């Protein structure tokens, strides 16, 4: 008997919204190809409606996630790192295909993404210790400032540049959720597969549903919906193109101004951004509100 050639089982990629894996409400997909134009998979074409659903899920998750202890949030982020470590090869392959780079480089990028989760896991219970503190006001008052999460953050994930498809993605999501925000993410439109697979990791890492929502599709549909949405509190425009045009950073920022969203600008040349550089605290501190409490002191 001759050897039977075994056929691989291919994966249907899905969105990640509210802890579940829906297809797009549009019922549509788009073709995702590698750097040589070879078809890799179909990705769901997330729509404006999918975006609004994701914002609802993110809003519903804020109370629980912001209310959990910083210690528990750190445990969850570290758990994500543990889960990713176990699926390192899968992600390395997806990143290599997505970005057209060698397997070794791709694996290094995944390693760095894992370490980035660990970096932010350690920040959850320390951010208040560097960004908050007692204020020595001139009077008989106890005065304390503490950072609190902003709420729902819309993220335009990096769309281009070395490491954007996964390390870049992790580098923008982790700091947002570390402080207790929830996120709706427009993932890299042309290289969405590592991001959609990340949803599977997040779903098995004790992260409550809705804390991170991942949407593939046209950035020009998703990003403006986030920018104009009244129930989104802040925007990270990491992957928005800086120049003019629909979905450009300037347009999105102007739209966000209607509800005075906090906006983190993209790099001057987003495609040239090096995501392998150790992050500081900029992204972490961009999505917190400082709350100051006064209380009298007296017998």
């Amino acid at each position, binding site marked *: 008997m001759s050897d039977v050639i075994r056929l691989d089982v291919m994966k249907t990629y899905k969105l990640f919204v509210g802890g579940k894996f829906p297809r797009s409400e549009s019922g549509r997909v788009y073709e995702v190809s590698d750097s040589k134009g070879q078809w890799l998979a179909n990705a769901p074409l997330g729509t404006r409606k999918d975006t609004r659903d994701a914002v609802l899920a993110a809003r519903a998750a804020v109370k629980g996630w912001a209310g959990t202890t*910083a*210690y528990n949030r*750190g*445990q969850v982020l*570290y758990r994500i790192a543990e889960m990713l470590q176990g699926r390192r090869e899968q992600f390395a392959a997806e990143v290599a295909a997505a970005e057209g780079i060698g397997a070794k480089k791709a694996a290094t990028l995944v390693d760095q993404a894992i*370490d980035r989760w*660990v*970096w932010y*896991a*350690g*920040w*959850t*219970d*320390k951010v208040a*210790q*560097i960004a908050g503190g007692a204020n020595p006001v001139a009077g*008989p008052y*106890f005065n304390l400032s503490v950072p609190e999460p902003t709420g729902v953050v819309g993220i335009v994930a990096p769309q281009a540049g070395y490491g954007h498809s996964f390390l870049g993605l992790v580098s923008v999501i982790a700091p947002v959720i570390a402080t207790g925000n929830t996120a709706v993410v427009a993932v890299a439109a042309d290289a969405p597969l590592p991001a959609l697979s990340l949803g599977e990791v997040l779903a098995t890492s004790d992260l409550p549903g809705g804390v991170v929502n991942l949407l593939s599709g046209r950035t020009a549909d998703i990003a403006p919906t986030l920018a104009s949405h009244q129930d989104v509190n802040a925007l990270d425009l990491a992957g928005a193109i800086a120049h003019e045009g629909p979905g450009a950073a300037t347009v999105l920022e102007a739209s966000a101004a209607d509800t005075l969203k906090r906006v983190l600008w993209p790099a001057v040349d987003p495609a040239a951004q090096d995501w392998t550089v150790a992050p500081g*605290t900029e992204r972490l501190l961009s999505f917190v509100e400082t709350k100051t409490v006064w*209380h*009298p*002191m*007296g*017998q």
Partner: protein
Amino acid sequence: MAKNKKTETTTVTEPVRTSGLFAYAPAPESPAAAGDIAGSYGHFIGGEFVDSSGSEALKTVNPATEQVLAEFAQGTDEDVDRAVKAARKAFGDWSALPGSERGKYLYRIARIIQERSRELAVLESIDNGKPIRETRDFDLPTVAAHFFYYAGWADKLDYAGFGRNPQPLGVAAQVIPWNFPLMMLAWKIAPALATGNTVVLKPAETTPLTALRFAEICQQAGLPKGVVNIVTGDGRTGAALTSHPEVNKVAFTGSTNVGRSIARQLAGSRKKLSLELGGKAANIVFDDAPIDQAVEGIVNGIFFNQGHVCCAGSRLLVQESVHDEVLDALKRRMATLRVGDPLDKNTDIGAVNSAAQLARITELTDAGEAEGAERWSPSCELPSAGYWFAPTLFTGVTQANLVAREEIFGPVLSVLTFRTPTEAVEKANNTPYGLSAGIWTEKGSRILWMANQLKAGVVWANTFNKFDPTSPFGGYKESGYGREGGRHGLEAYLDV
């Protein structure tokens, strides 16, 4: 039945009877869960378990049964020297590791502690005498959390407020007490390693077992050899370690007298020293306090861990107007405390750690009685074998009484009264110690005013004996110096 009130005459002060109808059957944790305890232990030096250079061995006993659990080595000067050299050798590579990689070792340790927490909880309970309920629900979760917290600092030291690129000190000599063996180890080792130091740690001579088990965890985590070294022994070993010329840092938790002698010994050496010593905390209850919760806080403040707590609320300062009410409620509550087998999941108060400690508690309480303070304990049956002391209350105590001044380090509460906030502050501060204090009142501004006035390193308001890795802990005055925990805890191990 008539609609009129049934004329019942119930005595007001009658204590709750809990041993009657609903008596809890024994619910013992299995001693086997502690894992294998070896017949005898050597030290952990350079990543290996090694024999002592000397032949003297000490015994550690289960204080609840007086049975010998294991023998362990009395560390000699030579053992200590060997451990310090191993730590020195490891220091170069360890301190040169990127912080993120050092952090990952600590995360591993934290995770393994979480995984093995039941084993460690049972072992701690057996070796120390403290109830399994506490080791399970308090000690072990706190230990894991402490490693987890400092793991995160390892690659963030630039942000800790001590300037850019703060440097480790080198080899840290660490001597810890027996009251929270594994937790004290975590408080010492986690920040030291996160900042890039290597350590030689000496556990207390009555509770060495969890530290030796921790050495196995270091091996499982793949921690480089020599980063953590554990040398066992009594005070002689401790003295050899703290006075070793090649250590760069000394950290000690224990009695004020030993701390004083270490400070004297290190004078002129320019070695960084942190000391966490004794206490005689005031737990201050105002008349507007949430009484039921205050009573819980008083009980937790002094009877937690058999009162073997340096920050124990051993002086109850109660406002005169609610003295009787609080005392009635306190006695009623004390009558429900369950003293006995530490491995029984329903035990509230376990065994006193050692015969020596029991003798000291007995001596001080007898002296208190002789001075005229009124002594009260609920009726409770104490096991025949082992070291036991019933929860005890002294009323009619004044500032001058021995039981109001000396740290008893046992389940003994002295009750004093006050009339005004100012008087409460004066009495609370009227001690050479200054580790902790408690305030019970519903009035927020008074809490903050009191906190401002109290000379104590930790002030708890409407709670007591709360600890968290993020929260600095340490004393004023003769309670020591330096802080453990939180961002502040890094300073003790950095050259800043």
